């Protein structure tokens, strides 16, 4: 019997005696902030600008990059939470991550540089994390099913989950004879150092010739990529969070 066995008794975390509950809180705080630290690092440096600026939130790269990079830390922590505690921890991590992001972002974007909050709002991953946890629980901890069904749903539904956030900024605007979205107009008015570069990148590609099919194709592809992202995240969770338990390099 090892720590991963579900029947291992952990009386300290049952909290059935009042004097033991402080341990639950202490452990929860340590693990939660540890997971949020990874999520913040991964998401801000991989999805990064897609999560910072409204005009970066296009219908192709935004869901693709954001979903895939948000999923693997969630998958890692979900894996560890399920293996060690039988707790589907993705929702908890997503919620904590959003709170930390929304608390820290205004310091720089609004506090230092006065970019408006409706230009620098982040995407949400909470409903998708709930979906991921539901799939894990209903599949009774089957990692393959969670990766295929939960991972695919996470990616494919990213744009749907965030549509109510982006929709106001997709409204058409005509300015100086040009037909733009509100997000485009925000981007032109609020200068950043690398703005023209991204617009050049996102405007290239044959996908734009597929017109109305673009969204569906992107969602399907994002779902497929997210299946792999989930698998990668679960592996990372196992290698870094579970495998090192009670392992030592050498005796000194």
């Amino acid at each position, binding site marked *: 019997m090892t*720590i991963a066995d579900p029947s291992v008794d952990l009386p300290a975390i049952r909290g059935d005696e009042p004097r033991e509950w402080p341990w639950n809180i202490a452990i929860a705080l340590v693990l939660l902030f540890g997971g949020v630290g990874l999520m913040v690092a991964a998401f801000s440096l991989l999805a990064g600008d897609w999560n910072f600026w409204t005009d970066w939130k296009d219908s192709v790269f935004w869901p693709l990059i954001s979903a895939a990079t948000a999923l693997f830390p969630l998958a890692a922590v979900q894996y560890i939470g399920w293996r060690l505690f039988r707790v589907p921890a993705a929702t908890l991590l997503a919620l904590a991550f959003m709170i*930390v992001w929304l608390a820290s972002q205004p310091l720089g974007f609004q506090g230092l540089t006065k970019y408006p909050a409706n230009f620098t709002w982040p995407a949400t991953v909470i409903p998708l994390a709930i979906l991921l946890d539901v799939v894990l629980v209903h599949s009774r901890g089957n990692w393959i099913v969670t990766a295929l069904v939960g991972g695919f749903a996470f990616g494919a539904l990213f744009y749907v989950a965030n549509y109510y956030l982006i929709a106001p900024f997709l409204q058409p605007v005509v300015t100086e004879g040009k037909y733009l979205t509100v997000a485009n107009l925000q981007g032109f008015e609020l200068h950043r150092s690398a703005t023209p570069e991204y617009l050049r990148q996102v405007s290239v590609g044959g996908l734009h010739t597929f017109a109305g099919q673009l969204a569906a194709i992107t969602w399907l592809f994002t779902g497929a990529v997210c299946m792999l992202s989930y698998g990668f995240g679960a592996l990372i969770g196992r290698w870094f969070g*579970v495998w090192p338990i009670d392992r030592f390099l050498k005796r000194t």
Partner: protein
Amino acid sequence: MAAVATEALRVPRSGGHGRARPREERLSVLRFAWPAAALLTLTVVWSLYLLAFGFSKGADSTDPEYGKYWYTMLAINLVVLFPGITLANFRLASTRCRVCTAQLAEAGAVAPAHEMQHHWTFLGILLTGTLSVLGGFAIAIGGDAAWHQSALRDTSITPIHTFSFYGFAPLSFLALVTSYVYARTRLPGLWGPSRGVSVAFALLVGGALFGMVNFTFNEFGHSMWIFEELFTYPMHWPFVLFGLPNLAIFAIAVTSLLRVATLVSAERGTLTEPVGAAR
């Protein structure tokens, strides 16, 4: 799981349910939270300083006032804060808990209630380490992205970097080193020299160290090749790589938790074998 002498843990139950613990056995919130509270206080101070003087005194690194407001803060970090924590670590490493030493000499084992106090303190230090890692990245999101995409960069020692690269990054490394030194000297049954070097700690501390080193690569790259600050540039990806070992904190915390569960069972008189032991 750790090979512990369970016979020494068969503590006769001295009180009934609900009876308050003696003062020295109680889990003090202050004992757990003071390192994290100190870090949060520092975070608030640094954040307010950034908001007050970030742009007004920090937009031009060639301005004489820049040195007064920002190189001073850098000097405080490099000369006072980090050496102070390092010296505290040396002291921690060269001393042992007197109560543990006395109990070992008297009874051959540390009392469960006292060992739980060490676990409680250990978790508090671990929490401080995770919060400092998180603080570094949080400041980086909120401040660095906005700063570099508006003010660009004319130095590697920008106001944000003073508190992120030269503040939280070394703090997180030092806090995690402190947690390891504390674990090695105060919890030798789990992480002492007789057991070797813990893989989980090697990952955790190593990740923080290499992440800190990667800041130098990052600044070199920005200075020589890519002056702009798109957060998604491949040049930033090693930060994610060195953030992955942060997950080792789960392995460390759970090891401590299982030991605490064993001690709790011992206090209740229900212990038959260490919790989570491999058979």
